[in-house]
């Protein structure tokens, strides 16, 4: 059978980095083909080349056996290639249905938009995805998970022959993921070719027929999923065995570092209490929207506290701004590195030094040498893959960006480090390095408060787990006694969003 898409000998450079070095790849109609690799392996680059977002430096692309020249996004769209990006392509101010059918709204005979039909089309499509989203809702009002679903609906509305999904489940709950999978299977049964980019191995075994592994821009190989297993794929990706097993806590937590009592802030945080000791990793678990992030923001001075008390290092603590919190010894790695974390247009050194400008200055003058030297230390310590500390952060892969973000907070040498979703959009290799790093920090006496939606991550890291539901802390358990069922039971108890289930281990 002629492959739906075939690429041969694709090369691509970015700012001196060889992102793809002669990759061959093909997907047959009806096939669900996983693209797998570590950060910077070239998965996203390859899928963006196929979707016409980037132009390859060299190589050929064939669609249904026909050579395709000068592929652009618009042309790819016309040819039936659809892509769901990791990041938003939605217009916040418009409704769900207007976003899904942007530019192709059904019109009446005067050219006016036929709203009734538009709503009908959208709810049909969303119904297929098993979703109960109001087509008239403004995208700005939707939670992240639902936005992702709207993105997928938008791509599907083009009735693509080839659908590329780049980490589609990163923000989805279990139910949404299951619904997505059934849609993807249905599409494949209809002859659509699917390229599935993901870090989650379990998803690949559940969904895909074939898997292509990339490493450092090179093709490692293409395998039938049935002929391989998790360990083998991990070995191929990283060249070493990895496990996120829980490490027995060799450290003993010290004195109480921070103690928050009955903290409240707006509707998001209603009654939350949490304690972190020195040298302890405390994980905040709970459903999406339970107020975990907002609680962290209160502790960090980024959100107003309306009730309750915080004692930090033995003193009453009322941070009025992140600057105050940082000065007192608190750092916060925020959830969304592109919005609240990094300065993408600036270089690595400037990103790392932003929290410690005093430390890299002589009096009032910033010293570029000190800045570079500081960044160089962290590039080495965290094994950040970049040509130099003057490399613009937007040129780095997701995992390396996450490490730069961590470096920025390690530079503060905080007593308490809050880490919101430490490994979002980060591959297995970088993930284990980040875990090691967090454990080392705790061993040095830093208190860590980690927010995570990934239960295996919570279980692997936590000395203690605090569960939140509906803006309240509802329970607490020791890390070595906890299991997923127990956490889920607490997290869904009395919750008004009890239908949403956290993502269990895969």
């Amino acid at each position: 059978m002629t492959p739906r898409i075939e690429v041969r000998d694709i090369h691509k450079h970015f700012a001196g980095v060889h992102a793809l070095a002669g990759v061959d790849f093909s997907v047959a109609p009806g096939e669900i083909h996983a693209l797998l690799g570590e950060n910077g392996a070239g998965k996203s680059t390859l899928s963006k080349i196929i979707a016409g977002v980037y132009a390859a430096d060299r190589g050929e692309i064939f669609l249904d056996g026909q050579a395709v020249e000068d592929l652009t996004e618009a042309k790819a769209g016309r040819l039936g290639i659809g892509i769901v990006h990791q990041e938003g392509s939605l217009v916040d101010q418009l409704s769900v249905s207007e976003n899904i059918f942007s530019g192709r709204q059904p019109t009446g005979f005067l050219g006016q938009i036929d709203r009734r039909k538009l709503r009908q089309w959208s709810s049909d499509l969303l119904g297929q995805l098993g979703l109960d989203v109001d087509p008239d809702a403004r995208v700005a009002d939707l939670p992240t998970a639902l936005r992702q679903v709207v993105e997928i609906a938008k791509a599907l509305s083009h009735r693509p022959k080839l659908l590329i999904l780049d980490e589609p489940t990163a923000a989805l709950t279990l139910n949404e993921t299951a619904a997505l999978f059934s849609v993807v299977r249905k599409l494949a049964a209809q002859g659509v070719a699917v390229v599935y980019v993901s870090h989650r191995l379990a998803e690949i075994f559940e969904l895909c027929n074939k898997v292509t592994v990339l490493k450092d821009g090179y093709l490692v190989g293409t395998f039938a999923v049935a002929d391989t297993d998790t360990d083998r794929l991990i070995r191929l990706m990283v060249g070493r065995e990895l496990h996120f097993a829980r490490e027995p806590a060799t450290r003993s937590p010290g004195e109480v570092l921070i103690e928050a009592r009955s903290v409240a802030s707006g509707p998001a945080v209603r009654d939350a209490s949490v304690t972190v000791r020195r040298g302890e990793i405390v994980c905040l678990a709970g459903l999406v929207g339970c107020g975990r992030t907002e609680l962290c923001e209160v502790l960090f001075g980024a959100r107003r506290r309306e009730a309750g008390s915080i004692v930090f290092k033995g003193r009453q603590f009322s941070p009025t701004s992140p600057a105050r919190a940082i000065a007192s010894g608190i750092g916060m790695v925020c959830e969304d590195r592109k919005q609240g974390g990094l300065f993408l247009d600036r270089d690595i050194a400037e990103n790392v030094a932003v929290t410690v400008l005093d430390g890299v200055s002589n009096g009032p003058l910033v010293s570029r040498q000190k800045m570079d030297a500081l960044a160089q230390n962290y590039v080495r310590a965290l094994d950040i893959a970049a040509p130099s500390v003057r490399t613009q952060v937007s040129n780095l892969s997701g995992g390396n960006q996450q490490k730069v973000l961590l470096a920025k907070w390690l530079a503060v040498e905080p007593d308490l480090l809050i880490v919101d979703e430490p490994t979002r959009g980060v591959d297995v290799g970088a993930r284990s390095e980040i875990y090691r790093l967090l454990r080392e920090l705790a061993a040095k006496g830093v208190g860590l408060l980690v927010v995570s939606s990934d239960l295996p991550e919570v279980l692997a890291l936590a000395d203690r787990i605090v569960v939140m539901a509906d803006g309240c802390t509802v329970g607490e358990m020791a890390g070595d006694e906890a299991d997923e069922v127990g956490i889920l039971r607490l997290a869904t108890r009395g919750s008004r969003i009890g239908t949403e289930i956290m993502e269990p281990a895969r």
Partner: protein
Amino acid sequence: MNDLTSIQSASQAPETARAAGAGAVLRRIVESRPLTLLVLNVALCVVMTIFYPSNFMTEANIAAVLLNAAQAGILVVGMMILMIGGAFDLSIGSTLALAGVVAGALVGWMGYPAEIGLLGGVAAGAVAGLFNGLIVTRIGINPLIATLATLSIYRGLTQLIGASGVTPISNDFKFYGQVRFLGLQSPFWAMLIVVVVGGWAVARTKLFRKYYYIGGNPRAAQLSGIDVNRLMLGAFVLMGALAGLAGVLAAARLNSAVVSAGIGVELSVITATVLGGASLKGGEGSILGGILGVLFIALVQNAMIINGIGVFWQGIIIGLVLLLAVSLDRFKRGHRA
């Protein structure tokens, strides 16, 4: 790829190597906005010197060009800092007039000493800037709309205070706008000090480097411990104070506070700032670029006057160069992405 081809051609033929070398130099020049502007400015001077040797490179003409650039040169420093931080100020023309009228009223009508007038004018500008900054940072109104409103308010206030202007102000006051040093009038020296101090501060100091972070990603800057609102408020106050300085100097130079002073100056200053490498989304630009942009505009104006082509061409040429510079930037970025 380009490096590779240049190495290959170098081994093959020296002539092409030289051509490739010239290409590399050209790329360097296009990559750096201040360098592009510097080359343009020097080229303009050379061409003018060749074609109009007796008109252009004369002491009087150069002094005139520099004096002409002084006002925009002072303003471009404040505007560049605002734009690096992701904001801008449309009210500077009105602020400038307000400061002039306040100074004129203090000295010419109320009989205060000239120095009080100067300080009062600058302070009036700073207060105007403070008001802009408070609207933008506390109420959260977009700078475009906030300063569009105050552009109108400050002009009205100027007319309210100044009626038909203050003429003459006083001889003591006039001294500060007309005193010469090394053949150049005081506004030029004021600009030089503002530009040198501002350029140094923006390039080197911790305080002003923070504006690059704010413009690059305001939320990340806030979460990194930078007090975004306070710094942006400071930038608006500085802009207002500099507009005040430009206003009192203009009034002193003419010994007259005119209520219609500075109309339209905001657009030419923003033109120079963008020409100098700033972008509307913030995080980019330098004082060096900004002042070279101001000089470029002043030189084009001067060239037009000397060769008698006419003032209508000024606007066309400055506009075209602005479009060309920004397009080059887009092109460069498009290649990188």
